[in-house]
């Protein structure tokens, strides 16, 4: 078990608002080794961001862990939903890269200082040394003139540079696990590429484990070797990235792949997933996806649908008809679908 730097088991998060409790993350488990890159794919509201926040103990007001445990480097830091040392991991153990660098960076502090401050706090480095290290960090992030730019304020930088500065801040503390919450969503595609390269190179160089959350399948495919698909707070499928995207074994994954086709795919059409995912998720019994699912049957309307191993050691799916998804997917790819 200690081969995993981060081991999350049965995480469940509920939000309480005005007397009503809604479960937003249900029974989520995953584990990463040093140097691993796990992607979590899902759309807005599926609970992926909430999951990351829970790992840092920064859940929004009203949300709390109701159950689950988290092991960090073999030590149990969350037991049965109760914090047992999780907070101490922030920064040095587990770092988080946000989507919006603008709100993550202090607007009245120069970026050089923001990076060096992190170093002083986590790495026990003196003032002068931390300043030099900050300049070094900026250089390795691709800033062309680090000495001058470290004196700049966040608003003086472009979006991509801000994002890189934030990554620099987070990684300067050398966390063993790096959580990324849609870090490139707000960026241009060319800038996105640069930032992805940066994250990937950091992972390779320092052996940090990566948990990368995004709604962009392509980005996940680039940077993550393993991927888990999340829908309405639950994992619905998991497996190696290439395989999963080539032959999905859950109708939701199949739907997602149709909505964001490969730019090189012969068929340029976009396929919608019928229905509205934003509808209240608490009211549905059975599989959360069944109202929108082309393969739904009576059995899908009730019961629990945990991940089960399907075809191959590494593949898991929550769908009871996972075998049929392959056929559905192939038919669409070949254009024989309606």
């Amino acid at each position, binding site marked *: 078990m200690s081969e995993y730097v981060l081991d999350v088991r049965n995480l469940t998060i509920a939000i309480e608002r005005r007397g009503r409790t809604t479960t937003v993350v249900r029974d989520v488990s995953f584990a990463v080794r040093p140097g691993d890159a796990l992607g979590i794919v899902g759309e807005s509201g599926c609970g992926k961001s909430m999951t990351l926040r829970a790992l840092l103990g920064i859940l929004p007001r009203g949300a709390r862990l109701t159950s689950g445990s988290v092991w960090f480097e073999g030590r149990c830091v969350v037991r049965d939903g109760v914090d047992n040392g999780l907070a101490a991991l922030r920064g040095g153990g587990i770092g988080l890269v946000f989507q919006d660098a603008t709100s993550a960076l202090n607007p009245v502090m120069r970026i050089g200082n923001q990076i060096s401050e992190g170093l002083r706090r986590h790495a026990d480095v003196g003032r002068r040394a931390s300043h030099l290290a900050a300049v070094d960090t900026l250089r390795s992030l*691709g800033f*062309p003139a680090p000495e001058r730019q470290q004196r700049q304020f966040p608003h003086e930088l*472009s979006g991509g540079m801000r994002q890189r500065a934030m990554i620099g801040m987070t990684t300067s503390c050398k966390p063993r696990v790096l959580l990324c919450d849609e870090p490139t969503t707000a960026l241009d595609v060319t*800038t996105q590429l640069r930032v992805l390269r940066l994250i990937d190179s950091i992972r390779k160089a320092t052996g940090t484990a990566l948990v990368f959350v995004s709604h962009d399948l392509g980005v996940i*495919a680039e940077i993550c070797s393993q991927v888990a698909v999340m829908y309405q707070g639950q994992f619905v499928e998991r497996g190696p990235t290439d395989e999963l*995207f080539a032959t999905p074994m859950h109708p939701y994954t199949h739907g997602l792949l149709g909505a964001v086709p490969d730019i090189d795919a012969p068929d340029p059409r976009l396929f919608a997933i019928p229905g509205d995912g934003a509808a209240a998720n608490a009211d549905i019994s059975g599989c959360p996806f069944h109202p929108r699912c082309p393969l739904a049957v009576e059995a899908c309307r009730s019961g629990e649908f945990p991940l089960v191993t399907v075809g191959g050691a590494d593949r898991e799916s929550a769908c009871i008809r996972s075998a049929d998804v392959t056929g559905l997917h192939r038919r669409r790819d070949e254009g024989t679908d309606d």
Partner: protein
Amino acid sequence: MTSAMLEVSSLSVVFPDRSYGPRPSRRTENSVVAVDDVSIQVNAREIVGVVGESGSGKSTLCRVIAGLQQATTGSLRYAGNDLAHKRTLADRRAIQMIFQDPYTSLNPRLRIGYVLDEALKVGGMPKADRLEAAKELLASVGLPESVLHIRPSRLSGGQRQRVAIARALAVQPQVILADEVTSALDVSIQAVIVDLLAKATLDRGLTLVFVTHNLQVVRALCQRVVVLHAGRVVEAGPVSEIFASPQHPYTRALLAAIPRLHRSASLLAEPTADESTTSAERTALPQAECHFRQLCPLAHERCRQERPALQAISAGHEVACHAVGQPEPSGDTAPRMSSSTGDGGVPGDRRG
């Protein structure tokens, strides 16, 4: 021969340097050229994509066409009428826009039914017909009539965009401008909205200008595409041709940068260069040069001295590049984004 519905000619939008006072036409060092001598022609019933990254000027261009922003120089014609100076009510209604953010494009205090009714009323429809027409509009965007009685706060982002489309259609326009309408939506909903727009456009014989940074959507929806970079048109032509064989280095870089789902050699292995030019940095760039040259693998001396003009390289396909028509460097189909000014030092590389 289809007639030109919209004709943008040598349009420029310069945002003045405020420290010199209100003199919009003066181009000083600090004024920002958001749209730089752009000419585009959109024919009736066409679906044209306008593509660019941030700072490309696509939104500003869209706003100028919509009448929400004044152009500094150049002309804009709709069905032959010059729109630059005064728009008649008919002109105003002929061009409708759907905005990016579904959470600010609908008035939070007004019920959907009221908004649609008002739009129909302004179009001259008699009161007796309006309710039915409103219901039909909602049906055409896939919403039930119960939506008429509620306010936008009860709807999700995708539903709001549908209402926005219904509102735009209520006025019976000729041209629809869609400004990043899918960017704020979940991917599974994007396809629905795109599909709706396509259907509405085709059913009513409208012209659609689809502004976006998302090339996948352009490929699915548009017949022609215009690629903007730093306020200038760098390439324009039929979608199929441009995606199959992009000619401008920027277009190629853009296509190459999109992450693929299945890729034998990952994008990440290749080196990179500094940030692309955004409009904030463009204030200092001289006019008489190609703004892409710093990142262009085909850049040469001429690129530093002369702005490339749009030239047609085949029917309907134009490119603004000095290097087009030259023999390609050997073995390179998708250019690597390496700096040509010898800046060296690229970030991710050193760690290998």
